[in-house]
């Protein structure tokens, strides 16, 4: 019974966080805020949901002593690690693609990326002129 309670607490943490991620898709006004809410909440929640599954496999290993449950936990940790890396990288790529395709955050005060890109363009133009001379 303690085992079920522990699994229930961990999976509820994950599911609540996951539902925040889904609701943030509908409640936020533009792409960047939606990306922020969805990516952070779903990564956190899916890690916790997976941990509850691993905890169940660990209890089965203690109960029966079969090594295939340990193999399942190890493979599951590889999957969670892959999820951790790919989610962050994909969200970064989506945000950059949204910026470059012309979507701007609505109350935008300072756009550091635009200044940076302008500086880089000026630098590369100056370098090209120098190379011509």
């Amino acid at each position, binding site marked *: *019974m303690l*085992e*079920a309670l522990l*699994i*229930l607490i961990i*999976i509820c943490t*994950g*599911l609540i966080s*996951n*539902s925040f*991620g*889904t609701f943030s*898709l*509908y409640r936020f006004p533009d*792409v960047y805020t*939606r*990306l922020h809410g*969805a*990516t952070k909440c*779903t*990564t956190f*929640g*899916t890690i916790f*949901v*997976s941990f*509850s*599954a*691993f905890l*169940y*496999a660990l*209890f089965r290993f203690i109960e029966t002593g079969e090594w*295939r449950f340990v*193999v*399942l936990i190890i*493979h*599951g940790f*590889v*999957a*969670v690690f*892959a*999820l951790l890396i*790919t*989610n962050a*990288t*994909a*969200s970064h*790529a*989506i945000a*950059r*693609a*949204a910026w*470059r*395709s012309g*979507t701007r955050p609505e109350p935008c005060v300072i756009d550091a990326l635009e200044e940076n890109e302008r500086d880089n363009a000026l630098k590369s133009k100056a370098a090209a002129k120098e190379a011509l001379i």
Partner: protein
Amino acid sequence: MSFSLYVLTGGVIVMIILALLSVGRLFLGPTTADRLVALDTINTFVVGIMILISVITDSIVMVDVAIVYCALSFVGAMFLARYMEGGI
């Protein structure tokens, strides 16, 4: 069937409902980036569902499928983002 298995099955059902709810943003997103965000969210949910199902049905193969699905969804998201930028 023990009580903790019922808990995990309920978790799978809730995750499937959340993934189906995220499909709405896929259809009514005003820009392409909104749709891409919804697709990324659904992919993350599917990986979690696969790990839960592998534990419930006691099959290790499903976790390996989850790893490959994770990598392929990452490649797909990067490809679509690159397409949005105008790189291709």
